[in-house]
Each structure stands twice: as C-alpha cells, then as structure tokens.
C-alpha cells in the first residue's frame, strides 16, 4: 500500500475501509478516498485508454480536468475517477481496454484524417463508419437501466460565492458581515481549497491553519449557507447559477456573485507527457495531503515557479526520493520555497526542462535538456513520477459563461479575466492573486463589493494589487520529432497535429479547435487551451493575445441528463369527470395535455358503433370539459368579439349563439367555436380543446394592443361541460329542471340560457355538432361529476349512454362539420374550407381581414368538399391519402369514416376548385399507389334539412 501516515490525508478516515471493484478485481480504500486515490493507494495507476491512440492514462490533475480519468461506475458512464468518492460495493470499470496497436499507425492517422479518406468508393464511409464508431465512444449505457432519481433545489442569495478556498471564504465572511444572506458553493467535500493541499509556506503549516481558521469562522456565521461537494456547472444571464450536488440540481439566483474558483495548473508538452506517473505538481500534492497517498517512489519535479519547490518539499516529506528538480528558469530565481529546497539539499537543475518521458505503461525515466539555444547536454533521470509545475490558467469557465473574456496577458504569460458583467466579481487566484494572503485579502474586498452591488452598504476596501510574480513559463512546449507530445489529452492532439492543422489553413483558434477537436473533449480544453494558443501564436508569428482562447461552453463538470430533467413533470389534465370515465372503462386518448375518452369498452369498433347509434336513437352524454371557455365582459365586449372573430355578432341577440371563426393575420383559419351572447355586454366564447390555450394568449395579446374596455376571463378549467345529445335529450333533462324550459320553443337551436339542472347552475347551449338535439351544459367543474351521475341514473330508462371522441367524430362528419387542424392546415382560408359565410368582409376590421381581401383577389387553389365512394363496397381511404389528377397532387383526404346510420363511407377532402361541384368524380391515391374513385357529395350527409335538430 502507498498509504502515508498522519498528518497526511486530511480527507480520509483510516478507521473506515471501503471495498469496491475495479475492472473485476476487489480493492479496499478508505472513506474520503476518490476512486483514483484509492486505486493509487493500491498501486493501480492506469485508469483508462486514451481516445485515439489508446494509450494508458492515469491521474493527471487529481481534480477532474481530463478525459483520462473517466470511468464507468455501475450504470453511470463518464465518471471522473479523481472526483467521485468511493462507496461500499461500487463497481468501477474502464470504458475501453486494448487496441493500443493503433498507436503504431499514428503516422497514417494525421489530424483530421477522417476527412481525407474512407469516402472512396462512394460506399466507403458506410463500411468504415461502424468500425470507427465501435472504437471511439467512451462510456456505456444500458437500455435496461430504469434511470436514476434526481431532484431540484431552488435558492436565492444576496451574494453567492463560488469557491471555498481562502478568497471565497473571506468573500463570504465579508459579505455576510454587511448583513447579506450568502450562499457559499464549494466543489469539494471540505472547505479550504488550495489551502488543504498546497504549500504556501516553507514550513508547510500555514495552509492548514488558515483553512481551519477561515472554515470555522464561516461555519459560525449564520448568514452563510454552505453547500459543499456542490459543483457550479453554469452561470447564465443575470447571475442564474446551476450547481450539481449529488443527485440534486441546485438553481440559484443571486443579486451579486463572487467567483473565487481559483486557478488550474497547466501541463508542459514533451514526448510521452501523458504517461501514467506524469502529473501536475498540484495533483501529487492533492494525493499526499488530501488522501494520504504516496504518488511515487522516485520523482522528478519540473517547475517554472516557486510552487514547484513546495511540491518537491511535500514529496520529500512523504518519503518520495527526489531524483531532480528541473527549473525551466535560468539563473537563481528568488523564492522562499526554493531556498528551503536548496537548504535541504534537494538536487536542483537550473535552466533545464523535460524533453521526454521514457516508459511504456508508466514513467521510468525523464530526459531533460537545457533551454538555451544549444540545448546543452541531455540528461536522464530514472524516476517513476514526474510532477509538472510550470504555470496555470484561471478557472474561468463560469466567468466566461457570464460574459467575461479571457485575454492573454504577456506580463504574466497567461490568461487574465476581463469584462466581468455587472454584479459579478472575481477574487483570488482566478483574479491573479496567487498567495494565500493576497487571495484572502482579495476575497474580503470582493465580498464587500458584491454586498454593495446587492444593495448593502459596507465600507469599501482596497483590493491588493495583482502579484507581479507569475507562476507561468511563457512556452513550456518541447516538440519531439517522434511525436506523442500531447497538447490535448482528451483527444490525443499532439504538437504536430496543431502544426499540421495550421499548414492546412485552420488558422483561427476556433477553426483550429474544430479541425483538431482540441478543447472539444470532456475537459473542454481546461488543460490544453493555453498551450494551443501559444503554439498557434508562435506558428503564425503573432502575440498570443491576438490569438485568443477557445470559448469554454456550459456546463462545467458532471451535469447529468437526470439532473436537468429533475422529476420530469409532464403535466396531465384530467376533466372533472375523469373518475366516471375510468369507472366506465373508457379508453383514453391524449388531446393536448388533456386525456379524453376515445370510447367506452374494450372493443373499439363495437363500442363506437353502439355509442353513435345511442345518440341517433336515444340519448348520449359526452364530456366536453376540455373545450375552451372565455367570458368577454364590458362596454367594449361586442367590439372585441367583432375584431377577434371573422363573423358579425353585433346584432346577435342575448340568449343566442352563433358559429365563430378565428383567423390569424395571414387570413388562415386557426380556430372555431360558439360565440354566445348572455347579455348586451357579456359574451361567452368557446374554443376547441387543442387551441384553447393559444386562443386565450392571442386574446390577451390583441387586447394589449387594442386596449378595449373589456375583461377576458378564462373559464376553461372552472367550467366542465356535458353535452346531452339525442332524440330523448329533452325527456332526460325536462324532469330535472325547474327554471329551464328545454322545449324547442323555450330553448331553440343555437340558443343559450342560464338556469339550474338538479339545482346545479348551468349555462345550457343548444348546439348542432353531432346532428341530433343537443344541449351543451357548462357547469362549475366541482359539480360536474354529480350532474353526470345524475344524468346517467335518470337516463337509464331512456337508454342513455356516454360516448367518446371517436363517436363524436363520426357524428360531426355526418353533418359535414369540420375540425380545425384536421380538415384545415396552416394556410387554409375560410373560403377554401367552404366557410365564407362565417366571414363578414363588410366589417371594417377583424384579425386577418386585410390578408383575406388580398387572398380573395387570387384564384382559389383548392376546395374542401364532402365525398362518398363511387364503389360503396370499396375499402375506404385513410385520412391524408392524396387526391391526385394527372400525376399532380391537388388535395388530400382530411376526414373519413364509415357512417353506421348511413351505412357508407363518407369523408371530407381537398380537391381542385373545378372539381368541387357535387357529382364530380375524383381520384384518391391509396395504399400501394392504387387509385380509388370518389364522388363529390354535398354535406351534410345526414339529415340535410336539420329536421332532427329542431
């Protein structure tokens, strides 16, 4: 075991072993371990095979910043092994194994190779694509997996602080001191950030002490809500944050935001810089100090800053032998840590850089050379660990998402944040304050600024100046003639790939990114953007600042589909009568968000026929609660109705209804319904089920422009509807009411009355949709079920029967009534649909009038007609079969059904205008291209005189 004794390993609990499996073998780690640290403790270094070359990869950042640590955990793909805590019984496996032979052919697989080959002969890609597909994809999904549980938490904060390092902790404290409510989000399980694993001072004590002190202060502050192990994945407009914590998505709106997300160490580029055992200096420190894991036995540290010496000191204290410290800088750079290392006699090689690592499955030795022109003599250091500490880049994804840009600053040889949006502040290392003291002071100032932006009035405070010293080496890139010098580990992009892409002409950073796929992998360039920009700038002889950085896009970190979906509410609307339908064995069909009974019973054909015949012979009940219903009231109510609908309603008498059409501004039909006048200044307007929401929105939209003196009330959910239809409808209703005269004289066709049925208040409409005497009863939804049951009981002797949408469709088709959306499409005019009579062109204005006037001046392109089949015994066509003439499409069947009462196939279809006269034959193209003859037949097909509806 590579486990170090106390005080190393501040996150692990040595008393709690955790057993898990990796690639079929059993291992034991400790509570507090990540998968990767537990495996490292067990001597396992290889976590994955790389994307293109299938090279072994292990821990590089120990912070989840590269694809090389992605593993499969149970049914979850693409889990960062260096971030995910181990759990008892966890089964971990590699995404891929084997296939490393491809590495030997990498000469034949240059950058963008797939654009250059595989397409000759023409079917080439069809052969190659499946082979390539099988090789590349990372994680596995199991179609049998039922899916995980996720939920969401909604929060507000005066000040949100992202990052629990010294800057973030100080910012949270400073903001809370002003009275602001603070939410502190920290990606790791314990507060402290770099203080927990870094070595800010030579003695190696200060970090832990400061973390403990700040952490305790934050815990003691009641106005700070602390969320640990919470990764902020997105920062959207107006400080709207998404964060992932376990299986939960946190959504947080903050008045002001402090980003204290730190910086991220960057790799050097040289041959075999990807071998397991090569890692960032910070990664070695994280292993040592957080997890108590000894990262190697003999180490080389390559550094360009003082922090690298902190790594060397940590390694030495952890019992790792130091083979050498390669300092890329010439001469004798200053620094307390360097002095301490020199004092301890650690072997320092000044002005030297790693040019290659040796080894096949892990580092065995490091080749180094001088950095001056001559290069100097090559040196070789045997080592199983190579730690890189050559610079960093701001952890700026969230800031960039929020609208800031990363600009290259030659003074620090790295990126710097500029242009933070209003209310967003950066603090600490992300803002180039690298020492713990500077970060803490910077955080304190930023916390106060954020509190001020959130409306609190703290004392302003000066920010410490940015540190002059830079941790960055300006060009830590050492190309090797034999390649394998990786710039981007996710997709195995090498120095040569970048150079070749540039000679291919991909000179813009965004083109370079798309062509090489650099920065397009799971880490989105977190370890490659800086070096890619340097390479591009050098090749084009431009300053790096002119090149820019590829844009990181949301999300940052592991945001699962399930996090975003949450509990996935897909609302269902059920009418007040739903339980009654269920009890009757209704088969439901979706209608927008509603569920409506299609028919009652198990055999559709039998049930629908019986329901239709019940309406014709006795009496049927249908639930029409899903229809839209709107009260239009006020002095301008007649004017509103006149403008919104195509017809004329000014003279409609109270107590009467009229069919109403609604067009859009292009004069195309969008809905129909009944316009009922209850009083001179009170209309009740219905809309179809599917269009009701849109009609309501449209009414409000127009009213916002017209500003008429009306109130529009949406009664769709408040009122349920029961249509009582059939020759015995009056027999059913008359005994149940005292104040409604349901006789033909008392409530004539297209009349409306308000009254009571069985003491339930109703609006009763005499409508004609189904072709028999029908009363549409609109009642308060809470009383609808009682009324329904009462009607069924009272109607038992009359043969009452509920009927569903399927029967209703046949009944309406017999009468030739159209269904908007089925018998019309996005361009249908009232004239095409045969509804010109419902349009009052004499009105000065209604929605769509101008368009209809223009369209009326053009020849009609089609007409909706009724039809029957020339051969009554022929198999009926289906809806949307085409009407063709001499090979041209002239129309289509929009509705078709077999009418049980007429015992024939009837339908509606669009035909050419010259085919629209009754008796004219036309041709429908049905299944398998067969042609079927139909005859235009003027609807209504049933009871054309309307005698049954009197």
């Amino acid at each position: 075991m590579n486990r170090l004794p106390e005080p190393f390993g501040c996150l692990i609990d040595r008393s709690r072993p955790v057993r898990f499996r990796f690639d079929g073998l059993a291992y034991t780690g400790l509570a507090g371990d990540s998968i990767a640290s537990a495996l490292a403790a067990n001597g396992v270094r290889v976590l994955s095979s790389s994307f293109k070359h299938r090279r072994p990869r292990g821990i590089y950042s120990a912070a989840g910043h590269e694809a090389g640590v992605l593993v499969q955990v149970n049914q979850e793909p693409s889990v960062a092994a260096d971030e995910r805590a181990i759990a008892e019984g966890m089964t971990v496996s590699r995404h891929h194994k084997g296939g490393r032979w491809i590495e030997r052919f990498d000469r034949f697989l240059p950058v963008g190779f797939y654009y250059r080959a595989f397409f000759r002969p023409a079917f080439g890609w069809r052969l190659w694509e499946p082979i390539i597909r099988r090789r590349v994809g990372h994680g596995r999904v199991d179609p049998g997996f039922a899916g995980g549980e996720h939920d969401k938490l909604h929060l507000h904060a005066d000040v949100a602080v992202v990052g629990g390092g010294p800057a973030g902790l100080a910012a949270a404290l400073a903001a809370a001191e002003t009275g602001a409510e603070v939410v502190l989000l920290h990606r790791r399980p314990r507060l402290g950030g770099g203080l927990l694993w870094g070595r800010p001072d030579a003695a190696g004590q200060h970090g832990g002490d400061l973390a403990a002190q700040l952490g305790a202060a934050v815990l003691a502050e009641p106005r700070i809500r602390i969320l640990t192990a919470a990764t902020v994945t997105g920062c959207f407009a107006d400080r709207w944050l998404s964060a992932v914590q376990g299986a939960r998505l946190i959504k947080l709106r903050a008045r002001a935001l402090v980003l204290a997300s730190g910086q991220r160490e960057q790799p050097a580029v040289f041959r075999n810089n990807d071998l397991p055992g090569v890692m960032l200096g910070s990664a070695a420190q994280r292993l040592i100090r957080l997890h108590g894991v000894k990262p190697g036995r003999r180490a080389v540290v390559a550094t360009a800053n003082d922090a690298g010496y902190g790594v060397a000191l940590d390694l030495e204290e952890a019992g790792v032998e130091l083979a050498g410290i390669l300092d890329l800088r010439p001469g004798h750079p200053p620094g307390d840590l360097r002095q301490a290392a020199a004092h301890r006699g650690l072997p320092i090689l000044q002005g030297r850089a790693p040019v290659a690592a040796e080894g096949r499955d892990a580092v065995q030795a490091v080749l180094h050379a001088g950095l001056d022109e001559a290069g100097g003599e090559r040196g070789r250091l045997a080592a199983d660990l190579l730690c890189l500490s050559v610079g960093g880049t701001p952890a700026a994804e969230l800031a960039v998402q929020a609208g800031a840009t990363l600009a290259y600053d030659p003074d620090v040889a790295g990126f710097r944040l500029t242009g933070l949006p209003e209310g967003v502040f950066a603090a600490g290392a992300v803002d180039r304050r690298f020492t713990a003291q500077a970060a803490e002071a910077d955080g304190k100032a930023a916390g106060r600024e954020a509190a001020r932006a959130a409306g609190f009035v703290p004392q302003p405070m000066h920010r410490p100046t940015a540190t002059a010293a830079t941790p960055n080496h300006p060009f830590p890139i050492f190309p090797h003639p034999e390649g394998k010098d990786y710039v981007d580990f996710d997709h195995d992009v090498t120095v040569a790939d970048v150079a070749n892409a540039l000679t291919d002409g991909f000179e813009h950073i965004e083109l370079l990114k798309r062509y090489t796929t650099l920065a397009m992998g799971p880490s989105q360039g977190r370890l490659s953007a800086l070096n890619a920009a340097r390479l591009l700038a050098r090749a084009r002889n431009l300053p790096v600042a002119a090149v820019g950085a590829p844009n990181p896009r949301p999300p940052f970190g592991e945001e699962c589909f399930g996090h975003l979906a949450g509990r996935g509410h897909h609302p269902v609307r059920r009418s007040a009568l739903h339980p009654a339908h269920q009890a009757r064995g209704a088969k439901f069909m979706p209608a927008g968000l509603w569920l409506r009974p299609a028919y009652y019973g198990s055999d559709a054909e039998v049930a629908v026929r019986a329901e239709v015949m019940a309406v014709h012979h006795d009496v049927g009940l249908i639930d029409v609660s899903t229809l839209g219903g709107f009260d239009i009231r006020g002095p301008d109510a007649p004017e509103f109705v006149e403008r919104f609908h195509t017809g004329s309603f000014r003279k409609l008498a109270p107590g009467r209804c009229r069919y109403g059409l609604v067009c859009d501004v292009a004069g195309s039909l969008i809905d129909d319904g009944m316009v009922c006048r209850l009083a001179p200044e009170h209309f009740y307007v219905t809309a179809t089920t599917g269009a009701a929401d849109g009609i309501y929105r449209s009414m409000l939209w127009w009213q916002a422009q017209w500003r008429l003196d009306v109130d529009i009330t949406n009664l769709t959910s408040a009122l349920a509807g029961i249509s009582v239809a059939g020759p015995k409808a009056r027999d059913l209703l008359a005994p149940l009411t005292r104040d409604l005269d349901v006789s033909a004289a008392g409530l004539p066709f297209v009349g409306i009355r308000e009254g009571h049925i069985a003491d339930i208040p109703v609006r009763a409409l005499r409508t004609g949709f189904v072709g028999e005497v029908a009363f549409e009863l609109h009642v308060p939804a809470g009383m609808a079920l009682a009324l329904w049951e009462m009607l069924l009981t009272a109607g038992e002797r009359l043969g009452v029967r509920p009927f569903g949408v399927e029967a209703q469709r046949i009944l309406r088709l017999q009468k030739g009534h159209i269904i908007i959306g089925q018998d019309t499409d996005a361009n249908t005019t009232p004239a095409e649909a045969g509804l010109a009579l419902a349009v009052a062109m004499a009105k000065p204005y209604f929605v769509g009038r101008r368009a209809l006037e223009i369209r009326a001046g053009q020849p009609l392109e089609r007409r909706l007609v009724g039809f029957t089949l020339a051969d009554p015994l022929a198999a009926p066509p289906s809806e949307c079969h085409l009407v063709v003439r001499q090979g041209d499409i002239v129309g289509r069947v929009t509705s078709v059904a077999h009418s049980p009462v007429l015992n024939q196939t009837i339908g509606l279809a669009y035909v050419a205008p010259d085919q629209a006269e009754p008796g004219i034959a036309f041709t429908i193209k049905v299944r398998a291209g067969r042609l079927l003859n139909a005859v235009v037949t003027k609807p209504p097909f049933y009871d054309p005189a309307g005698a049954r509806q009197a």
Partner: protein
Amino acid sequence: MPIGLLKYGLARRYPARRQFPPERPLKPVYDIVIIGAGGHGLAAAYYLAKQWGLRNVCVLDKGWIAGGNTGRNTAIVRANYLTPEGVRFYAESVALFRELSQELDFNILYSERGHLTLAHTDAALRTARWRAEVNKHLGVSSELIGVDEIRRLCPVLNLSEEARYPVLGALYHPPGAIARHDAIAWGYARAAADMGVELHQHTEVTGIRRQGDRVVGVETNRGVISCARALQAVAGSSSRLAALAGFRLPIVTVPLQACVSQPLQPFLDPIVVSASLHCYVSQTPRGELVMGGAVDGYPLYQQRSTLDFKETLMSDLLELFPFLSEVKVLRQWAGIADMTPDFSPVMGETPLANYYIDAGWGTWGFKATPVCGKRMAETLATGAVPDLLRPFALQRFDSFRQLGERGAAAVGH
C-alpha cells in the same frame, strides 16, 4: 488501411493541403460579392466557379468560416417535408449530399441513419401519413410505420403504452442522414478557392451602396468593394443586412439551442425526433448524442445559452430514453434562427435588381446547403430564378402565397 491515408504515413513531410488560402488584400472590384461564408455562401461560390465559370467572386464573413449556424446546427439531412415544393427542393439536396464527399474530395462523414419522426397523437399520425404520401408521390422514401417496426429500428426507445405520451407510430424516412457540418463548409471553401474564389474572413459588411434600385458596391471594415451582383447568405443576421440594403424581411430572429453529451459507445443508429416531446437526437460517429429542441420563445440576436432549455429538453428526452439519466452533457450552445411566417425559406430576388437573398432558414438551413448553393449560383449567373426556387420568393409574403411547412418542422415552434 484506406489508400487516402498512405501518403500521410509514407511522406517525410506532412503533405499539407491548404483548406483556406492565406489572407490577402481585397480587390476593388468583383463580379459577384457573396456576404456570409457559411455553408450556403461557400456552396454558392463553389457552383458559380464550377458550373458557371464565374471566378471573380469573393465571399466575405465578419467572423471565421462557418462560425455561424453552419457550425452550430445539429447536422441532420432529410427530405421528408410536407409541401411538394419543399419535398422537391430537399430531395435534390439529399441527392447532392450523397455525392458531396466525392465531389469535394473531402469526407463530410455523410451517414444515412434513417429518420424517425415519432407520433404520439392521432393528429401527429395524420401529419406523418400526409408527409409520407406526399414524399412517396414525389419519389422520396418515407413511410408511416407502426410500433413494432419502430421497435425493430430503434430497440432502445421507450415504447411503453404506460408512457405519458405513448408512441403510436412514426414517419420513417430511410434517407435521413447526419453529416459533419463544418466539413461541408470547409470542403466547399477549398474547392471554391482552388478555382480562384477569394475568401475573406473577419471582413464585416457595414453598408450596401446603391444607385436607384441597383447595388453598386459593398462597404466593409476593410474598404469598399464594387460588384456587379451580390448575394446575402447570413442566417441569423438576414434582417439586419437587408436593412442595410434598404428593405424589410418578414423574419423574426430567435435563438435555437442545442447540446451534446459526452461520447458513448454506439447504441443509437437512427435519428429520432418527437414533436410532442419537443426533442430530437442522433449519435455522431464519435459517440456524442447531438440533441436539440424547440426554438426559444423570444426574439434575440444573441447566441446565448440558457439553463431552462436543457431542463425541458432532458425532461422530454428521458421520456423517450429513460436509461440516459446518468449521461453527462458535454456542452451546449446556441445559434440564431431566422423564422419566416410559413416555416419555409426565402430565396431569389429582392427589391434591388442585382441583389439576391438566401435567408429565412429558421431551423432547416443546413440540410439545404448544396441545393441552395447550386440553385442560387444559377440565379446569380443567369439572372433568372430557377423553377425549383420560384415558390420560395420573397414576394410570396405580399400575396400570402405561403408554403406551410410548419407540419414538417422537426419540433414545435
């Protein structure tokens, strides 16, 4: 090992083949100026040079090549439209796409996966049959299929009758394909440049110079260019450029967002679209799921991503594929889509005699890239709009002769 790669392995030096020529100064005069170096503009330039021998052509772009919607769409190609005019147009596009890798000597990774438009309601079933019938009538392969056939084509789909929106059937369009969107623009760019067409990135058009109803030149941040004819092909900025040219477009510009997952081993072959659930998904050769949904509900000229887009998309997508709940989003982005009132594009003439337009591509511009380029080149070269494009004229909105393609839009708008 394919032959095409041998030279890379055997050459001593990398045999570079420049995709885009190096920057050069603008000339004062071109025969034709194309504004917008996306797929459409580059394709038009290519066919102008190739088919019509017009090589004194430049393509201008304010950003980098294919940096707009060409590089931001979800790269689906299909011809299963609703109107005969649309079907004929996209059928020619599909035919051109199929040959494009050979034509451009550049693999666009064109992969015919089949395209499934799921129907969850009887209204959607009717529309699916309508599209299938129109498609078949015009020789395009589409069929209304039932649940069993869907299960055969896409066994991982949730076809449970207990689902909130049970799948009732689907429009199956076998030629439906995915491709690498950037590669198409890059391929056209190189082929056009090889014939002498000039590409000018980072060259923003700041004004259109007119004399009467004719365009005489284009003002840019790099100077003024004279031209005999001009084409605007700037999806997302169409109405703003048209305003510079002095006319208005019936276009509303809204963001359209998309995202990809981390790469997964292959499990999804067809392209799956659900209008009721507002989502579509395909799996790239690399293994990423490419996903999109409805356009944002507000006009905006900004390529801004939102959280709620992902939330609704995933909530819908997991209805179809519940087992993807632990898959991770790799990145999300937005393009801006020029929506027309009838969900069909605008191609052809403008109020200016020698200024042509290629706009209004909403959410369906990528799949028209080759045909639009080819036919717009014909329009520019001959001065006459080909029959295939005539129904898409800008003037149709004056007479309300619209081409209703809403029913064929991938998802609700």
